[in-house]
């Protein structure tokens, strides 16, 4: 390799690095929010952000992406899933009509917002993911569908189901409070 070719290689690398730096500035908050929505842990989420950008930089896949938000959200989602503690979804499937005291019952004394947070945490994972991703302003339903690798119809259905479950649980909690 001649010196000129090597210098050319270096300048191309520098230009590529500059473009990637701009990409980080544009999307680091989105990546962090996607990671945090899934992991609910600040340190883990920051680690996922680092990992996401490093992986992208090495793979060069980011140079050919068409929808950068969807692409980044998808990559982040997959990396965050690896860190997500394995949850026993069956145990989290709650029966709306059940009279037995669940985690939401014990949180009656807490303020309403944290009660809803606990309810969201208690949702089945596939519903929770759709719900929290829909709450991120930067993502529309098409991008959420791309992130979760499913159709937009499925996203809408799950979103409706998640909201319905939350509504019912919240209504029951509120009525329980008033009854007391």
């Amino acid at each position, binding site marked *: *390799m001649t010196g000129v070719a090597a210098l050319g*290689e270096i300048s191309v690398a520098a230009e590529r690095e500059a473009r990637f730096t701009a990409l980080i500035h544009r999307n680091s908050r989105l990546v962090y*929010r996607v990671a945090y929505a899934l992991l609910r842990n600040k340190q883990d989420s*920051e680690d996922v952000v680092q990992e996401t950008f490093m992986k992208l930089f090495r793979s060069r896949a980011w140079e050919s992406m068409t929808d950068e938000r969807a692409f980044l959200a998808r990559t982040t989602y997959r990396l965050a899933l690896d860190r997500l503690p394995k949850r026993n979804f069956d145990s989290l499937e709650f029966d709306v009509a059940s009279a037995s005291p669940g985690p939401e019952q014990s949180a009656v004394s807490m303020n309403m917002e944290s009660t*809803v947070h606990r309810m969201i945490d208690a949702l089945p994972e596939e519903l929770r993911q759709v719900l929290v991703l829909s709450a991120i302003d930067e993502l529309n339903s098409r991008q959420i569908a791309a992130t979760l690798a499913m159709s937009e119809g499925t996203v809408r259905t799950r979103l409706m189901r998640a909201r319905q479950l939350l509504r019912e649980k919240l209504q029951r909690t509120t009525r329980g409070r008033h009854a007391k």
Partner: protein
Amino acid sequence: MQNNESDELEQLDRRIDSALTSYVDAHPSPNLEYRVIENIHRTAYRKSRFWQWAIATPLLAVSLLVVIHYSVSRPASVGAPSVRSKDGSTQSTTTTVGAPSLRSKGGTDQSPIAKVGAPSLRSKGGTSKTLTEKDSSSFHSKGWLTGTPPQSAATTSVLTLHDSALVAFARANPEQLHALFAKTNAPGPEPLAPIRIDDIEIKPIATEDLP
């Protein structure tokens, strides 16, 4: 009744939306972006450094070869050949002009010619001794300076103490050395003309006149 139910649902939706917003509302550390960028820089720099080495390494190798080539092709150095004696010690014959220091087994200094430059030799006993003019003439009588070096010196790479002293002496007295060489290599007298002997006539002996 239906209006009340609708209002209640609306209120629930508002609560859910509000709670969802706060649920996903998280802010990364202010320096997270810079940490990520720094990591990327480090990775990129590591890669570009590979290319720098890819260029520099062959250049260094070529330079080294050139230096080695020149140092090998140069004539034998005039000063300071360092020789290792049999006991493994180093002998520097001309560390300084006129006074090379030679170290022998014993660690004593020996100067071949005390008055001229005084190259120093170190002998077994650890004492320094100075070679005299007599020693010098002894070397001379052996013919070492007259172009007939001892065979051992020519065939082995290790110089003996005497060889080293002689070399030191020769370096310290170049004029004398030149004179000796001039004398040795001086052209001899003109070649003699061939001796020509004329024909000698030898007459037969006359026997008639004999008594």
